[in-house]
């Protein structure tokens, strides 16, 4: 679909972008914390199995966890140091998860040992194994193990690979910086991805608010690659893969289906960059680029932060206002509120945003009854009826929501809650409803 010259999808919302303060700041290396806590589950799927013991010394880049089955990836040491403990640690979900407590040696260098490289000439299966071994998960937010996505089942095929550099979430500028500073890695990664998926062409999607990135990628686009850089309208959630498919390909992923059903596949730019960076050197992920920003942050910026850095250390290092009261991992639209400062940075963390009371936009606004204004209906990119779903949720008619109103198709983008003038916590209700439906399904099965 095309409006005013630029491609986009139907519906969606326009939250304030708030990216100006960090989009011009280049990526800076972040120091090691005195204690890194590396959770062994940073992705969807099974936790990795620890391969180190308490008291063991590890090298930066050394494997500390091995995959537990196909839906799992390797973990690598973000720093050279001493394994203090292998024990439970708090996580963003509030649950305790197994983790490796790693105490970096003082003065530990940022140097990394190379492992066995996986060249572009390797077979598909070798590359997929290498990606799993490098611990690559989707850096676009969902942290889905990338090698699982790339394993195309027999009889299926992919014709288009989409590299997602949209970054529609307000405040975040990591993908923007990665596109500007790591384009070589991105294109190397793309070559690996094209090879594995067998796709004929690649489209790099960028939102119109990052013209410099689009320009840079166009210039750097290798002439032998079949593909293009497409600039999309600025609209949330343009970065969701479903919205990219409809905007760029005019195809819709079938309800409850997979991108494969429409012969497309989507990877985040940072994921592509990581693949392009790690595979030729045989390394694993030890760090990632994260935007640290928000009104409460003093030294905002885009930092390359070691995985496992505790939130408290991170915020102390950049400095935050005294009255900070809300910290989100991710941006304000989809990010999760940090329950405490004791949790640590994981591969899925694309940003840390901190707000103070005064700057908080979601103030203690009164919740009104739904006035049927239809703003949410006009916002929902999945064409659901959030107003009806919200009212059904309030009276706990979860099965009606799922059976008649497509509850399970909601991908929790939050557009509906964002626009609702009655301040009804719609997405929150939908999450609860989905959990209830899943539970009753599991109970019935």
């Amino acid at each position, binding site marked *: 679909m095309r409006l005013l010259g630029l491609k986009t999808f139907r519906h969606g919302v326009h939250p304030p972008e708030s990216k100006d303060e960090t989009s011009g700041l280049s990526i800076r290396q972040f120091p090691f914390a005195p204690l890194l806590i590396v959770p062994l589950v940073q992705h969807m799927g099974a936790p990795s199995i620890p391969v180190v013991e308490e008291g063991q010394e590890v090298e930066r880049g050394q494997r500390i966890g091995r995959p537990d089955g196909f839906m799992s990836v390797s973990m690598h040491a973000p720093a050279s140091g001493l394994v203090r403990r292998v024990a439970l640690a708090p996580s963003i979900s509030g649950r305790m998860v197994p983790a490796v407590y790693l105490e970096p040696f003082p003065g530990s260098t940022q140097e990394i040992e190379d492992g066995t490289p996986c060249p572009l000439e390797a077979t598909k299966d070798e590359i997929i194994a290498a990606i799993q071994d490098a611990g690559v998960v989707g850096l676009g937010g969902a942290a889905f193990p990338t090698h699982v996505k790339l394993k195309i089942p027999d009889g299926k095929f992919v014709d288009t690979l989409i590299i997602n550099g949209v970054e529609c979430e307000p405040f975040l500028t990591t993908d923007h910086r990665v596109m500007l500073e790591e384009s070589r890695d991105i294109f190397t990664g793309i070559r690996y991805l094209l090879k594995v998926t067998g796709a004929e062409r690649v489209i790099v999607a960028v939102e119109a608010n990052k013209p410099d990135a689009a320009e840079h990628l166009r210039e750097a686009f290798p002439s032998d690659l079949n593909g293009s850089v497409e600039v999309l309208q600025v609209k949330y959630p343009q970065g969701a893969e479903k919205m990219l498919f409809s905007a760029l390909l005019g195809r819709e992923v079938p309800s409850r289906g997979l991108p494969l059903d429409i012969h497309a596949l989507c990877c985040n730019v940072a994921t592509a960059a990581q693949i392009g960076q790690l595979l030729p050197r045989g390394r694993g992920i030890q760090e990632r680029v994260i935007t640290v920003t928000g009104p409460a942050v003093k030294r905002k910026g885009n930092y390359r932060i070691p995985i496992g850095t505790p939130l408290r250390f991170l915020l102390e290092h950049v400095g935050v206002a005294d009255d900070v009261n809300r910290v989100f991992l991710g941006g304000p639209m989809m990010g999760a509120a940090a329950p405490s400062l004791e949790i640590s940075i994981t591969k899925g963390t694309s940003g840390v945003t901190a707000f103070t009371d005064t700057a908080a936009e979601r103030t203690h606004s009164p919740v009104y*009854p739904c006035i049927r204004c239809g703003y949410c209906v006009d916002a929902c990119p999945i064409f659901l009826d959030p107003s*009806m779903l919200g*009212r*059904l949720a*309030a*009276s706990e008619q979860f099965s009606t929501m799922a059976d008649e109103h497509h509850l399970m198709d909601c991908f929790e983008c939050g557009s509906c809650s964002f626009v609702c003038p009655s301040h009804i916590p719609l997405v929150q209700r939908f999450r609860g409803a989905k959990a209830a439906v899943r539970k009753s399904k599991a109970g019935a099965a």
Partner: protein
Amino acid sequence: MVDDSLWTIFINASLVNNFVLAYFLGICPFLGVSAKLETASRMGGAVTFVMLVSSICAFGIQTLLVAIDAPYLKLIAFIAVIASTVQLVEMFIKKVSPALFRSLGIFLPLITTNCAILGLALFQTNKGYSFVQCIVYALGAGAGFTLALVLMAGLREKLELAEVPDVTRGTAMALMIAGLLSVTFMGFGGLGG
């Protein structure tokens, strides 16, 4: 014989003097079967159908009663003939189209003892309509009944999710909506005149 045009008869029976909202006929099914749209529309279809059948029956009976000069049998004859005809039709539909029977069937026995049906028979006789006029009258009344029922069902389904105060919940609320619908239909006054 009345010289009302068929169009006037239809508009009058369906909108201006809607059987439910202006004549108060068929209030029980209107209140009882209007909570869900699905049942409401099927009920509307079934009522329209039975109205048509009974209108034809009533026309025949009236002609017969006039011929044999036995007006005092009118009521009993209407009731008996309409009830048994509906029964026959029900059996017929069951044989011929089980699918149609499943969607209309359960309502048929209920409807026979409903005052909208008998009312239609009595009114058309009082008005002295011809055969064709009777049929149009029955269709109009059925359409009006269905319209009222379906509108009501939509509103009640919508209000099911509302935080209605306890005192209003139930029949009282249904009656209030019916009253408001009735006020709304007053706008059609004078149409078709």
